């Protein structure tokens, strides 16, 4: 046994798969210890906030300690961030129309562009072919730009409770900086928010956990049923075998996917908890394991050691447990891994159809995909809502499959390359 374990851990593929899987497990277990926020808590008002660090503006402005930093490119950066590419092209267009040759206009140099604009723009100048609306657009653009070039700061005022007037309470100069660590409210959202306004990362971690649990439960159920049926059917044979095979054939021909849909649908929304779904998946996917175990058992049952046990008068159960099971064990472990992997995928498929676990309590990977799909995240380009989910599913599946291939190579030396 120990020797087998040693071999297993020397197999490259197994180790890689195992590490990935363990990494995810650890993530799932450790993350909630540090970040205790409930995963389905809605924190964003609005949909699909992009990933980033969110700093409370009020706290930043009201921060007690402000630092003065003089950075060379601060002003340029400030300007650059306020002018979009489109606006730059518009400015260029106007300037060209006013007679300045295009080669002299460098739209990437914000300061130069703006000073050119400042010196040449005339609000009421009308060019042939320019509509009124366009002219007014340029006027608005000009107004919004006027603040950019100034080097003054901003004044903070609070309206007086009694008089309603604005009273100055402070000012912020362009060279004022705050240390983010000193700001009271900062929230890091590495994966932004989803369509409901929930923190995607926290949700994702919880979803991985739930999906893994569902996968595990379903996988164990499926493997267990498959094992029992396979053992009984393979060893006892005869009419028991025939009837079990009949049931198995039924399940094979009716795609398990279809069964899943039907059963899930008929259970109804209320009763569909995560565990129920896991049980349903487990109950419909045992077929493959049963068949494989049965084939193994059939080839084993005429071996000498089994005959010896029979002659010694051991009971059927005893024979199955001590003579046949150990040989099937390696196979069963691999089957378990594959069942877990496919169960997780099945759950994802179901959830996308809307037949997955209830949506109000826990997220699952499939559910997150479902929400992203329904709210069109993929078309809107909000990659953080679905891409990490897909990557997680792929990683889980990939790591499990790698582990399985690794185990396969250990148990079947002929497959080693």
């Amino acid at each position, binding site marked *: 046994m120990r020797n087998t374990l040693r071999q297993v851990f020397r197999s490259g593929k197994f180790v890689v798969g195992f590490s990935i899987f363990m990494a995810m497990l650890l993530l799932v277990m450790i993350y909630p210890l540090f970040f205790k926020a409930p995963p389905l808590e809605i924190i964003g008002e609005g949909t699909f906030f992009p990933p980033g660090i969110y700093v409370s503006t009020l706290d930043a402005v009201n921060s007690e300690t402000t630092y003065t930093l003089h950075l060379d490119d601060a002003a340029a950066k400030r300007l650059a961030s306020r002018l979009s590419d489109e606006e730059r092209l518009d400015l260029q267009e106007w300037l060209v129309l006013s007679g300045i040759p295009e080669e002299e206009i460098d739209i990437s140099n914000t300061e130069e562009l703006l000073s050119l604009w400042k010196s040449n723009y005339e609000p009421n100048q009308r060019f042939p072919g320019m509509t009124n609306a366009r002219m007014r657009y340029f006027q608005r653009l000009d107004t919004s730009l006027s603040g950019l070039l100034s080097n003054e700061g901003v004044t903070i005022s609070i309206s007086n409770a009694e008089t309603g007037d604005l009273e100055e309470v402070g000012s912020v100069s362009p060279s004022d900086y705050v240390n983010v660590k000193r700001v009271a409210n900062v929230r890091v959202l590495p994966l932004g928010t989803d369509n409901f306004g929930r923190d995607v990362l926290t949700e994702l971690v919880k979803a991985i956990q739930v999906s893994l649990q569902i996968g595990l439960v379903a996988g164990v159920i499926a493997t267990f049923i498959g094992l029992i049926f396979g053992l009984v059917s393979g060893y006892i044979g005869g009419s028991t075998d025939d009837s079990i095979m009949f049931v198995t054939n039924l399940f094979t021909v*009716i795609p398990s*996917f279809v069964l899943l849909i039907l059963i899930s649908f*008929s*259970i109804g929304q209320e009763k569909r908890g995560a565990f129920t779904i896991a049980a349903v998946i487990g109950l419909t996917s045992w077929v493959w394991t049963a068949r494989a175990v049965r084939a193994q058992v059939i080839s084993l049952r005429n071996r000498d050691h089994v005959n010896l046990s029979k002659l010694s008068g051991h009971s059927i159960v005893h024979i199955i447990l001590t003579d046949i099971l150990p040989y099937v064990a390696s196979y069963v472990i691999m089957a378990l891994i594959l069942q877990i992997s496919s169960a997780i995928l099945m759950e994802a498929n179901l959830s*996308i*159809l809307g037949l997955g676990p209830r949506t109000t309590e826990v997220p699952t990977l499939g559910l997150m995909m479902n929400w992203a799909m329904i709210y069109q995240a993929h078309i809107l380009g909000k990659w953080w809502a679905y891409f990490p989910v897909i990557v997680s599913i792929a990683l889980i599946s990939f790591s499990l*499959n790698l582990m399985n291939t690794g185990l396969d190579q250990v148990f079947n030396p002929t497959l080693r390359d």
Partner: protein
Amino acid sequence: MVTTIFAFILNFILPRLMPGDPVAAIVARYAQGMSNATGVQAIYEQYTELFGTNKPMIEQFFIYVRNVFRGDFGFSFSQYPRTVADVLQSSVWWTVCLQFPAIIVGWIIGNTLGALAAYLKKGFDKLLMPVSIFLSCLPAFGMAVVLLVIFAVNREWFPTSGGYGFDMVPNLSWKFLWSVIVHYQLPFWSIVLIAIGGQAIGMRSMAIYELNADYVKYSRFLGIRDRKIVGYVFRNAMLPQITGLALSIGTMVGGALVAEIIFSYPGLGSTILTAVMGGDYPLISATTLIVTIMVLLANFAIEIVYGLIDPRIKAAQAD
């Protein structure tokens, strides 16, 4: 045969076990704004009569069977007054024309690549293996989303949804057909790529196994060219792959249905989605039945093909 009957029964019973009264939902929709309670009740009774939900289950079952044989699947609850048959008719063909060619193409390409990897070894093999393992682990909808984002959203080479342009009405013009073909690409390729991943790995193992078989050595000893031997090997390795295809077609179709949903492709996938969201059990029942029948037919076809290809079976039958 028995299986079909069993599938039938399951298809009927399971959706109806769902709690809640769908008729009430429909009535509520139609009776909006009506305050006359008796009036609402009358409508309710009328619809119940129409849908037959007031009769005992057994009777409903027989009516169902009789109707199915007539091609009448009843009315769709969520898309009333369309009949289920009508809804199905428009979606079935989209699905069949998309999925079956895709699965077959994927199978062929995947097996060829797997066989090549086993034969050429070294570089090609080392490249193909990780790629196929990864591809085979990606869920069907995952591939669909990835392709969608890369090719439809970012590059805008392909449309993001639908079976054909929104502004078009199905007709036989070139413009329409072209639009169909363009819309066909992404869903098609997502299914194909996933199929390739799975098949390549299997075929590679089979081919490696066969390439190391004794008869390869022996044939070499008798002076037979390598090329011919390789031909033997691949033909022998393919046989179990065909059987494998039959076994996995159920899951592949399942995954492909979900992929359809991602693209809002007007096939059975989207039909199931709308049916589920609308609590429409005649539609679900009928759709799953159709899917089951499709898979059964596919299995059957594959068995026939296998019998034709494996020379041993022909010989056994000839005796």
